[in-house]
């Protein structure tokens, strides 16, 4: 890219749309700040546990210690160090959030793209199904899924020789479950986009050339939809992390002794009482989660503004 300031009279060669968008993104200070914050955070939560001599599951007699020299963020009811638990919890929350969002993306994009492209009866049927699922409170899906599927999944994993089948079963269910309650909006948005794309010239041309619907979907429609999708992905992750905290409050979230932000916050919220408050159990997990969600939202907004994406 040439520097247009060098020669005010000459016209700078036009940057590609992608580069223009990227530059717009870089101008958004909040978004850029958020990206650096997130990168630092991820680095910390991955590296700190390797250097700390506290293990997240190690019980001790030092219960409910205030933050101090020994335990930087204090300890919890079992004497476990909060900082280490927060790091592992953050890892789990990120993984759950991202994979859950990806699951919702995959289901939503496929559903919406197929419905939008096929049109007619198929579209009608598929969107009616979405309507039915939309009309039900998500908590019922979450509960039924957890109670019904977990035992069988755990049995299957144990038979397949997976290590720590029990923890994995709950984690997998959380990914699938959280993704499964969030894909509906994505499907609607994608369908809207596909409907408008379908009538565009390049799709007609492709069809005239004899391309199969699958080919058209995969090569033309989905890549064009991906822009909207990525933006909504960035905005779904915070929603999923928040929903996981709700599930933890209900006892459906991460299995103890594992932790996630949701379960740590649920524990911390349970410490608010009129007699004596162990404030560090709430302030640190909640504060960290809020900061991360803010960062994710700023990034999502930045992406959306930069790519000039309009919502469906």
């Amino acid at each position, binding site marked *: 890219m040439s520097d247009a300031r060098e020669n005010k009279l000459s016209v700078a060669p036009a940057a590609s749309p992608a580069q223009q968008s990227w530059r717009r993104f870089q101008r958004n200070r909040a978004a850029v700040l958020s990206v650096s914050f997130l990168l630092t955070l991820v680095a910390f939560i991955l590296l700190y546990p390797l250097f700390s001599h506290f293990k997240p599951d190690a019980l001790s007699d030092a219960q409910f210690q205030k933050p101090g020299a020994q335990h930087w963020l204090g300890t919890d*009811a079992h004497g476990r160090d909060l900082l280490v638990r927060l790091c592992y919890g953050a890892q789990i929350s990120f993984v759950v959030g991202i994979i859950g969002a990806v699951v919702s993306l995959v289901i939503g994009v496929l559903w919406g793209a197929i419905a939008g492209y096929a049109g007619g009866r198929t579209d009608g049927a598929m969107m009616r199904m979405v309507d039915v699922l939309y009309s039900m409170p998500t908590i019922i899906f979450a509960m039924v899924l957890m*109670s019904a599927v977990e035992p069988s999944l755990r049995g299957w994993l*144990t038979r397949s020789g997976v290590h720590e089948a029990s923890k994995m079963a709950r984690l997998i269910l959380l990914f699938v479950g959280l993704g499964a309650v969030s894909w509906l909006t994505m499907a609607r948005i994608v369908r809207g986009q596909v409907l408008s794309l379908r009538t565009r010239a390049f799709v007609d041309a492709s069809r005239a050339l004899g391309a199969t619907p699958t080919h058209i979907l995969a090569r033309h429609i989905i890549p064009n939809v991906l822009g909207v999708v990525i933006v909504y992905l960035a905005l779904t992750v915070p929603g999923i992390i928040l929903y996981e905290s709700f599930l933890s409050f209900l006892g459906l979230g991460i299995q103890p*002794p594992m932790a996630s932000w949701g379960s740590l916050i649920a524990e911390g919220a*349970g410490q608010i*009482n009129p*007699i004596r408050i162990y404030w560090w159990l709430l302030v640190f997990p909640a504060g960290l989660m809020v900061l991360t969600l803010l960062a994710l939202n700023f990034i999502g907004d930045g992406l959306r503004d930069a790519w000039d994406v309009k919502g469906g």
Partner: protein
Amino acid sequence: MNWPRLRSAAARQARRGGLRLASLSGWLFASLFFISLCGCVPHEPRADLVIVNGAEPESLDPAIITGLSEMRIVSAMFEGLTRLDPKTVVPGPSLSDRWEISPDGLVYTFHIRTNAVWSTGEPITAEDFVYSWIRALDPATASDYAGQLYYLKNAEDFNSGKIKDSNLVGVHALDPQTLRVELNHATAFFLDLCAFQTLAVVPRRTIEKYGDHWLMANPLPSSGAYELVAWRLNDKVRLKKNPRYWDAANTQLNVIDVLPVGLPNTALSLYETGAADVIWDKDLLPTEQFDAIKNRPDSHTFTYLGTYFFRFNVTRKPFDDVRVRRALALAVDRDRLTRRVTKAGELPADHLTPDGTANYHPPHGLGYDPELARKLLAEAGYPGGKNFPRFQYMFNGAAGGAAKSHEMIAVELQQMWRENLGIEMDLQQVEVKVLYANQSRLDYDVSRSSWIGDYNDANTFLGMFTSTDGNNRTGWKNARYDDLVHEANIEIDKARREQLFQQAEKILVADEVPIVPLYFYSGFNLFDPKKVDGIYPNILDQHPMNAIRRVDRPRPRE
């Protein structure tokens, strides 16, 4: 204001749309506000006593309730032949003022008080009692606690449908004031049972008229110290004094509110701000704060007839090997659990029946001996925990942390067994209904459990683990244990009875160990003794409401 007039059609539409928006908003907010006001409850005067009770009662029908929170309310509304003394929980006269027991202990003759009337004025007769007890035994009522009446002749057969004629059951009204009861065998605690809610007397005419919704009838005849004024689910139960109660002269409080609160912190907040006067459910105490509360003058803890334990599924490997079970039992540091985790002053338990049970001194079971535990595990074929299959500890969690203690204990057990024995355990948190269903189906490895005694006798605990009892749920069958418990139950001599129970319990907690007791529940009440009196610590945690008094306001509001 002189805005340049925009003449385009779009602008005209915009202006029209703007007006529409304004009018719409106006209507919207006005109607929403109006609707919102309708939802507000009219202000009721505060009750004389506000009690935080625990879970929302499923029902107030004495025949079908099973939970403690229901029983506390029902005992105020419907009484039986006897009632328990608030201090000693010894059964004393209630609707029956005297009785005779035959020498062989098989026939009881109760005399109903002549001044016993319903709150609506009709006399309470012996026929009412017959009706109530037969109704509780009727298979159509599907009462969970019908088993409390199985001590009556032919009661079990009637309940299981083998006989259809209710006249064959051992309870008859000889005349309106006399009730004759025939038992299958001498039962030492029968008078305690008569104070139990399932045996309370219920209003026949109201039930026949309204069916399942008889509790919503207005007026609802009450045979106890209080009448039901209002029952709003998840909100409150309001009781008012029954002036026709036989002991109304000694009942002080006029209006009592019973609140179903779900979260311990909310309960505590209500108490600290004075919105509630009493908290009397131990599950509503935030365990983390207990050490800050226990030394306050308003905190009252006492031994309680309840045990927290866990069950092994003895039909599954490796728990079919008694050495494995004993090893796991010996590796549990109960002292740490009660000191560090539950912290409500509970006593560590090495036997099932709590200390303080009437007429009984329990034997000791297995203590804490990690060395012996490791030896036993090695003997069973898992030295150092090698090759020990990974198993699951099943427990229930509830919303909002109300049942955090189960999780905390699970985490501690996991760590203890890992450290002491080198075995790995997974935690399996399920919903409470799934927990019970899995237990019934014997679809679990190790499961958290607890049991609260129904009456003050060892049988309420030890009877559970006979081979045929539905509450066994471990798959454990031991003929000698069955014989001992059965013999004890037909034994009249108290000393011999105690011996038999002791032998049985020894098999249960020291030899075979299908269950491992962890601690005995501590009853817990929170109330200011300068304000409230008449709530006495007793082993059943029963606090009849007619005994409670306000001492700061000697003249309660009329």
